[in-house]
């Protein structure tokens, strides 16, 4: 018989087990610091994206898509959890404390994730941009010399493949779905495009990661690869990124994760997701 959704979820949850045990003694301090930064940025990206996904729970355009976006949210949160746990093991902290215990300006997610949920086209456009970028980033980590990360990335990539397929179907459906869906999609892409490369913001200590073979290619190179791929797909759908509707500022990786002040949408989100955690100091939930 076919597994029920609940059974499938159980299987999927156990597909991303706790972090493989590792010894940090072999890592120099600069490498360790840079690795911590890499893990934190990736975990924060997945954590914040998971929140925007679960905002559709109960109100998605169709029940089928409601269930699908909840699965996406659970996957992203699962990835965030395993990355936070790896970071906690690296730095001697606690995954929940890292996820919920930082001040609002302490999060390192990319600017692409600073926009509020907005409409369905916006969610599709952002997810598609993020998923395609994430696929490039994960590709550069799959042969990471840091074995526990390579192992976790292999598992994450298996799930992300399905996310990308799902988003690709929606991108094409909206692009070819008539006047209104197309206009909404193009508006969303125009708004998001300046932040399209923000997942590849240069990392502090990136050189150390490259030299140690933890990261396969420089972020700048990954950004170029992503830009070429995304532009080609969108051009194939007749969505011009230069000279068409989707222009605006050219995308840049500079300050992709650094802001003078947190975005308003993230302030709101932070207030929500830390509300219970902050309500009782030191309590176990």
């Amino acid at each position, binding site marked *: 018989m076919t597994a029920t959704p609940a059974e499938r979820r159980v299987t999927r949850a156990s597909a991303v087990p706790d972090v493989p045990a590792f010894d940090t003694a072999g890592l120099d301090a600069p490498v360790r610091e840079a690795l911590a930064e890499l893990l934190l940025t990736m975990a924060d990206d997945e954590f914040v994206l998971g929140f925007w996904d679960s905002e559709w*729970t109960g109100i998605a355009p169709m029940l089928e898509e409601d269930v699908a976006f909840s699965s996406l949210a659970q996957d992203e949160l699962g990835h965030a*959890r395993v990355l936070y746990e790896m970071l906690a093991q690296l730095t001697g902290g606690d995954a929940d404390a890292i996820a919920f215990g930082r001040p609002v300006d302490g999060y390192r997610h990319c600017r692409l994730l600073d926009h509020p949920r907005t409409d369905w086209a916006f969610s599709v456009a952002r997810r598609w941009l993020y998923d395609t970028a994430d696929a490039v980033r994960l590709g550069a980590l799959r042969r990471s010399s840091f074995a526990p990360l390579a192992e976790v990335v292999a598992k994450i990539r298996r799930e992300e493949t399905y996310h990308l397929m799902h988003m690709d179907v929606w991108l094409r459906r909206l*692009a070819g779905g008539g006047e209104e869906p197309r206009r909404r999609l193009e508006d969303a892409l125009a708004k998001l495009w300046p932040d399209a490369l923000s997942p590849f913001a240069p990392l502090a200590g990136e050189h150390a990661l490259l030299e140690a073979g933890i990261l396969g290619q420089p972020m700048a190179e990954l950004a170029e690869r992503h830009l070429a791929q995304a532009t080609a797909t969108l051009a194939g759908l007749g969505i011009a990124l230069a000279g068409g509707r989707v222009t605006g500022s050219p995308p840049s990786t500079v300050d992709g994760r650094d802001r003078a002040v947190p975005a308003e949408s993230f302030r709101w989100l932070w207030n929500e997701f830390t509300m*219970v955690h902050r309500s009782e100091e030191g309590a*176990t*939930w």
Partner: protein
Amino acid sequence: MTDPLALDPVLSPEERSRLPYHDPDLSHEERYDAFVEHVHAGRKVEARDWMPDEYRNGVLRFVEMHANSELMGVLPEREWIMRAPTLKRKLALTAKVQDEVGHAQLLYRVAEDLGKPREQMLQDLLDGKTKFHNVFHYPTRSWGDVGIIAWLVDAAAIVAQQALRESSYGPYSRTMKKICWEESVHIMHGRDVIVTMMSGTHTQRGMVQEALDRWWGPLMQMHGPRSDRSKDRDLFWRIKAKTSEELRQEFLSIYVPRIRELGLEIPDPVLHYDEGAGRWEYSEPDWNELRTVVTGHGPMSQERLEFRRLHHAESAWVRATVLAAPVAAAA
């Protein structure tokens, strides 16, 4: 999980066509009698069977309200997905609420087969023409509510739902097997949330007690007023198997000891088990409140419906895009 179909073999179309109420040579009354006999023998009715209008409408109304309740039940919990205080809790709550949406989808599918399109059911819900369970008309105030809903509201629901696995309507009874399995996981999640808080700080324990105080009344009203077994048409048709009072007694028997075991106080001074009578005695639930609430005048009824109307309207363009004939993407 056991394959539900293995427990309830569905007859082949040929065998089904030989059921007496499918005999076109019989009069309507004879078919009706044969149908009643079939149902009273504990056998199942399938979607494409001949059935009396009263049966069709009865099942549709029952399943539609159940579907509406699953869908509206998502709203009180969804905001707490954002606020879940740990990674583990957030994962569990997200999965639980997803289950409820999935149940709504399954149940609307069951109801659809009886002749009412899903979009019409959603519209009737939004227009206030159809109902949903009383417990989903109330606000949620703290993380304690998240635990009480998943533990006790779902427990009260599962008592009713387990009985519905015996429903005479085959598609509904099979769907209930899957739903009960998932609901039982929700109850474990809810109990774990409550046990953790009850083992925590003074404030956390107070939060749980305060939530229980607010939810007890609606929980006692949830199964509805006592009814006359002989006049209940849903029982006659075996759409459901137990009376409201049977369900309430069952809920109290299982959960009163479990609630008290955690050091919680149930806000009903009358509540006790009468050994002689073999039943729980309790303060009369406020049936006026129940009537007021389920007719759309509860504390959150209109706000939740308005929230759903707003989002339904905002995403109409997406449904129109998906349901329209496919258009080739621009080259």
